């Protein structure tokens, strides 16, 4: 679980109810302002901010993904927005942590900020530009989730390929083995790690989409690894 999520629990435990008091707990907005240099090549924020390579990030908390009219988002981000992805502390954290784990086909070419404290600081900075920060730390504890720290341990699990093949049969009712993607995205030949991250993001309900939340929700780490290995290696001929 990420650093700020722990802090949020702490804030709740202390019974801090005022948003301001709690918000200070997200992280240090001043060091966040320094980290903003990593974003500002593409994004603007503050009065006069406009869309550049990326959309402006004013009012990002509580905003639905891909909601700025006139900005041309990737298909993947639009789909996530349609499915109901909303930018909250949790989802922003997951996206900045590893953009592709949350939105596979995102156009944001940013490798991700791995340090928990740095993300917490950056989010505190972004938070200052959101007037109406829906569900920030006061959110119910059950809503606080982070991309599980997919340690090398989990990523290193090697699934049983036979088991992967059997499990995959549950997926191919919707996802075609030949990789075609009309209406439902292709999941073949992904790097295993991306696949594992995406599945965990559904399992943790960070990625929206009821079907996939249900599918991933019942899979264990080993099963996800087995599927990642199987679909990662699937070629056209069976």
């Amino acid at each position, binding site marked *: 679980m990420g650093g700020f999520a722990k802090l949020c629990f702490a804030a709740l435990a202390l019974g801090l109810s005022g948003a301001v008091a709690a918000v200070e707990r997200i992280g240090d907005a001043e060091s966040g302002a320094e980290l903003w240099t990593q974003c500002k090549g593409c994004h603007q924020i503050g009065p006069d901010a406009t869309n550049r390579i990326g959309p402006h990030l004013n009012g990002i908390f509580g905003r639905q993904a891909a909601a700025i009219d006139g900005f041309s988002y990737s298909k993947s981000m639009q*789909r996530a*927005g*349609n*499915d*109901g992805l909303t930018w909250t502390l949790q989802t922003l954290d997951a996206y900045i942590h590893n953009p592709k784990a949350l939105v596979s086909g995102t156009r944001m070419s940013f490798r991700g900020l791995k340090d928990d404290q740095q993300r917490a600081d950056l989010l505190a900075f972004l938070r200052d530009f959101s007037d109406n920060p829906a569900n920030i730390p006061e959110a119910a504890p059950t809503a606080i989730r982070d991309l599980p720290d997919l340690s090398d341990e989990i990523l290193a699990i090697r699934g*049983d390929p*036979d*088991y992967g*093949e*059997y*499990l995959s*049969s*549950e997926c*191919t*009712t*919707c*996802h*075609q*083995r*030949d990789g*075609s*993607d*009309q*209406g*439902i995205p292709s999941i073949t030949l992904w790097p295993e790690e991306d696949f594992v991250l995406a599945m965990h993001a559904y399992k943790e309900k960070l990625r929206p989409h*009821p*079907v996939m*939340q*249900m*599918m991933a*929700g*019942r899979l264990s780490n*080993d099963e996800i690894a087995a599927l990642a290995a199987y679909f990662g290696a699937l070629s056209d001929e*069976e």
Partner: protein
Amino acid sequence: MKLNRRRFIGTASAATLAAPTVWGAGHGMPKVVVIGGGAGGATAARYLAKDSDGAIDVSLVEPSRSYYTCFFSNLYIGGFREIGSIAHSYGTLAADYGVNVVHDWAVGIDRDAKTVTLAGGAVLPYDRLILSPGIDFVDGAVPGWDISAQNKMPHAYKAGSQTELLKAQIEAMPEGGTFAMIAPPNPYRCPPGPYERVSMVAHLLKQINPTAKIIVADPKEKFSKQALFQEGWGKHYDGMIDWIGPDFGGGTVEVNPDEMTVSIDGEVTNVDVCNVIPAMKAGRICEIAGITDGNWAPVSGHTMQSRMDENIHVLGDATNQGDMPKSGFSANSQAKVAAMAVRGALTGAKVFPAKFTNTCWSLIDTDDGVKVGASYQATDEKIAKVDGFISQTGEDAALRKATFEESVGWYAGITADMFG
């Protein structure tokens, strides 16, 4: 991961577990006969042939050369699909997977001799038999209607010529005419199917005959995705659809195909088209095999084996399995569990715990799709629901459109999964 076969096989007997050793020289290759080339049967045949790499001799018995999917047949009525786009042939199953496709009816099953007799006289021996014959109608379920009336009052609940006939009748309705549907009692094939159909008929009539009326006589207090359908009907087809539940006599119905009248709770109405969807039961071959209890064939969820005969697996609509709805998605999901269990028994292949899923999408109007789904697991008693979801009323247009597009993707996915 430790997988204990004994645990997963569940109710299978010791004899079944020992089966692989039976197949030595002399017996030849183990034989599986699949009856019915629909959602369950085609999937089972394909997975058995694909995954056993030629170690099992798979025959598929199916009278039709083209299988018209019931799924998306309502979309054909609404004008969203061509009839040709819901027809599928068995060519790839035969050519690429080596399935022996026999176009004939199965008319007899000898469970002691383990043989299937076909209408053409051939006799096919089996080591395991898989039955996925879909549904037949309960005789006398709708007074005044029997199968000989199906051209005057189509059911269109087996897709193909019946679906085309129903659509042609709707197109020929006089201006301001009446379309009636007699909806079936539970349990039946595709719980949202009749209501998706009502939506698609309304969509068609709104364009070609906007003053026409639709009446639905229903014996059920409530139906699948009711809130979603009723919201959609109000929004897209206001005033066109009159749903008559059992409180208003929807369960007390009689039809007269010659006069084209429908009597609901004694009140007789002249109708122009009448879609009668009678109560259903397992495809007749299940009765012939003697594996039904009441209208359906009870099965174990661990393996889809008949509770009456462990050499027979039953799939899809014909079964009584527990919580899964009778859908193409369910039949496809069950087929994979059965194929795995059969391979385990006949070739000693690894067997994993049975998992099932279902999702049913319905189209209410252009780009207004909704869905309901759940996941299931096998218990000794039945296939039990684990977790589920349903579309919400009041969802925005972008989500409904995405849901519809997803269903198009699913259609392509499941038909590729069935037919290769």
